């Protein structure tokens, strides 16, 4: 039996596209092979490591186990779509650099996209919720603390809590100053 192909119409990083794909192809394959969006990494291919994460209609998905044909009519964002027109980094990308949350860089695109979903949600996550929200990603280099701190600081800054963001210590814990002693 011949392979089956379909045309997929979707929006990738703000641009409307159409592409003929093998119905069995994963979205990872389509994004990497047809659009050269190589920030979408092929890691475990079982949906565990999160390196292939993309944003589909505002939510993060493992694109390695998501069929390309399911993307019909969807709005997809990859890491390449986060940078500005002149290549300027977004706040979450910059925070990953500033906090040393990147080492080999393989997991970073996935982490950044899930973090992007978190900071775009407009709500303040507790430390526990933040750790759980990031738990779909595996990083073998950083030990997670720097990543956690980058996301937490960006979340606080987006919520207008710049001073609080500066109080986040190296372990990611917000260290409030001692209250003023009574006079």
């Amino acid at each position, binding site marked *: 039996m011949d392979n089956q192909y379909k045309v997929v119409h979707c929006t990738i990083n703000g641009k409307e596209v159409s592409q003929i794909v093998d119905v*069995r192809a994963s979205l990872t394959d389509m994004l990497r092979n047809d659009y050269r969006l190589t920030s979408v990494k092929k890691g475990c291919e079982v949906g*565990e490591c999160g390196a292939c994460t993309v944003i589909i209609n505002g939510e*993060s998905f493992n694109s390695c186990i998501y069929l390309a044909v399911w993307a019909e009519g969807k709005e997809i964002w990859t890491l390449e779509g986060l940078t500005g027109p002149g290549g300027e980094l977004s706040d979450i990308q910059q925070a990953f650099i500033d906090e040393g949350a990147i080492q080999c860089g393989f997991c970073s695109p996935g982490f950044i996209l899930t973090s992007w979903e978190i900071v775009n949600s407009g709500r303040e996550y507790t430390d526990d919720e933040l750790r759980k929200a990031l*738990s779909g990603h595996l990083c073998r280099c950083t030990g997670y603390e720097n990543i956690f701190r980058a996301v937490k600081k960006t979340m606080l800054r987006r919520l207008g809590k710049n001073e609080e963001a500066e109080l986040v210590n190296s372990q990611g814990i917000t260290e409030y100053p001692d209250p003023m002693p009574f006079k």
Partner: protein
Amino acid sequence: MAKTLLMAKNAAEAIDAKIASAAFLAGGTEVNRLGSTVEAETLISLKKCEGLNSIKKDGDKVHIGSMCTFQDIVESEDVPAYLKEAALFMASRTKRNMATIGGNIAARRSDSYLLPVLCAVDAELSLLTGDLEESKNINLYINEENDDSLITGITVPESVQVASKRYANTAQSHAVITMSAASTAECVKLAVAVKNTGILSFNLSSSGRLTEEAAVAFFKNYEIKDIEDDMFGSVDYKRYLLGITAYDLCKQLIAESGKEV
């Protein structure tokens, strides 16, 4: 590897297309993964099926469409807390956005996230086989090998006391055991998923007091088919874990309800 993909528009279309060499494809976390054991010439995608992703409350029951994702369950105000807790056993948010309740049941995995809790509360499945719509207790369903039926919905009780535990090396690892205990009027119903072994169910009567020693001794000697040493632990370890977990869950139910087991 599948060669064709059919995108069903509704449950009737999906069941019409179901032949022996075809398999249903729900969220894709099981079927699309590398090394999947699902072998089919044709995959019938349920992704665009209408009417399978709603959550409705009906008195003391909650009806959940089979294509509701784990994240839909976590976010719904109508889903009982015990089922949300089990859905959160899947630690990855990105996976929860994809995996469906129907797919998790139909996969019948020995490390299933949801089967223990659904078996413990005696969930009812709405099934479609050919033109026939039927309702079946999940405990009967998982012991059958009829893969031609399509799960269209799951009905769970709302006000039942449930305690659950999952043991795995990490939040992302496969669990060695996932156990749930549900308190009913007559007994406590235990259901457990044992990795590489299967789903086991037990009814504990409310006569006599359960002790930790008694629970450990029970599972030490209980005949469990296919249990063996593997990378998840030795048989002795698994049996011990079953015993102390059963005891812990019952103790938790007693503390919450005041009822003795």
